[in-house]
């Protein structure tokens, strides 16, 4: 588990360098990515399918990013973009290609479908969390102004 954390942390920190994340945020971006990946592996280990796990991992990334964005007073994108990348199904894209080359039509179809659904799961997770965060922020603001 610790090993997975370290690997994911280093990968995300590497992405942060490529995308020029501000220096002070590189460690927190690495933490976001590592937590997302840990959630993903935890769900996989507890027997969930890869699509649900991807959804959960992306939810974790988006949630922590929104919290960090409020905390550091910065854009949430700064954390989400490097954090999400490890969950994007690159390995599945590769296995799809491998199946195509081997001429295994059935496996191609199943792996490709899984890849597309995983990407979809990431998109939906980001959407849900971002909308919820927006809604909560609006409600909090409204409550505060009403009290005044």
């Amino acid at each position: 588990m610790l090993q997975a954390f370290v690997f994911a942390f280093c990968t995300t920190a590497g992405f942060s360098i490529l995308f020029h994340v501000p220096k002070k945020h590189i460690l927190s971006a690495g933490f976001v990515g590592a937590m997302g990946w840990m959630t993903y592996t935890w769900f996989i280990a507890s027997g969930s399918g890869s699509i649900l796990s991807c959804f959960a991992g992306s939810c974790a990334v988006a949630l922590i990013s929104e919290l960090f964005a409020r905390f550091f007073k910065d854009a949430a994108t700064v954390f989400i973009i490097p954090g999400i990348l490890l969950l994007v199904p690159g390995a599945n894209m590769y296995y799809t290609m491998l199946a195509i080359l081997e001429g295994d039509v059935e496996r191609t179809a199943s792996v490709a479908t899984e890849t597309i659904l995983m990407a979809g799961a990431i998109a939906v997770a980001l959407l849900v969390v971002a909308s919820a965060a927006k809604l909560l922020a609006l409600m909090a603001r409204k409550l505060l102004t009403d009290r005044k």
Partner: protein
Amino acid sequence: MINRIQKKVLILAMRAGELMMKSGAEIYRVEDTVTRICKACKIPYVEVFATPTGIFLSLDEGLDGEMHTFIKRIKGTGIDLEKISRINHFSREFTNTSLSVDEGLAILKMIAGIKPYPLLLRMLGAAVVASFTALIFGGALQDFICASIAGSCAYLLSMLLDKFDTNLFIRIFSCCAAATFVSLALFAAGLGSNFNSVIIGSIMIFLPGVALTNAVRDTLAGDMVSGTSKGIEAVVIAVSITSGVGVALKLWTFLGGAY
């Protein structure tokens, strides 16, 4: 007639928007920033329409004044989160304090001049990404080294092709093909133990994560035009990665290599 100060405000707002768009910001953030800057300078009616390839800005001075529309074509995109973060802070500062327009222009010029991290550090970043991903996807220690070589080679090639303004599809296609080829060559030389994980690691830096994220965020904010275009970008990148890897694998067996 539009006066000098208003002209400067326009330049300021347009430049901020252009910089953000070129750094890979979401549409709603760009539109919000441009509107806020114009409103802060007491322009009563502002209407912004931003797409990934251009910004349209329309200003109205009220019934007595004239209406002005400006179009800025945006060419070339990249990702620079530091710039997005800085401009975000800048727009907040500009609206909340009494910064003058000239000072604002000077700050934007400074932000535009920010360079990304040095090339060697970025190559190291690519190597770190590739090697640790290879470990995550079941590689051994020697694959760690192979993946870092393949990853940084691919990144260097992508930077080189970027200099010659190669289009997105061809750039990612050739980088992924090169990464696959290097991985297979290292494997054939007896260095790697699991070439699957090495290839997965070295194509990791080209994955369309940013396009995917921004497509979702734009769609969420109701910017359907940009949402769809970013979504298509993500699909194009995915197709170019898989076809690049596929061509390289096929070519490798064609040349007599085994895997």
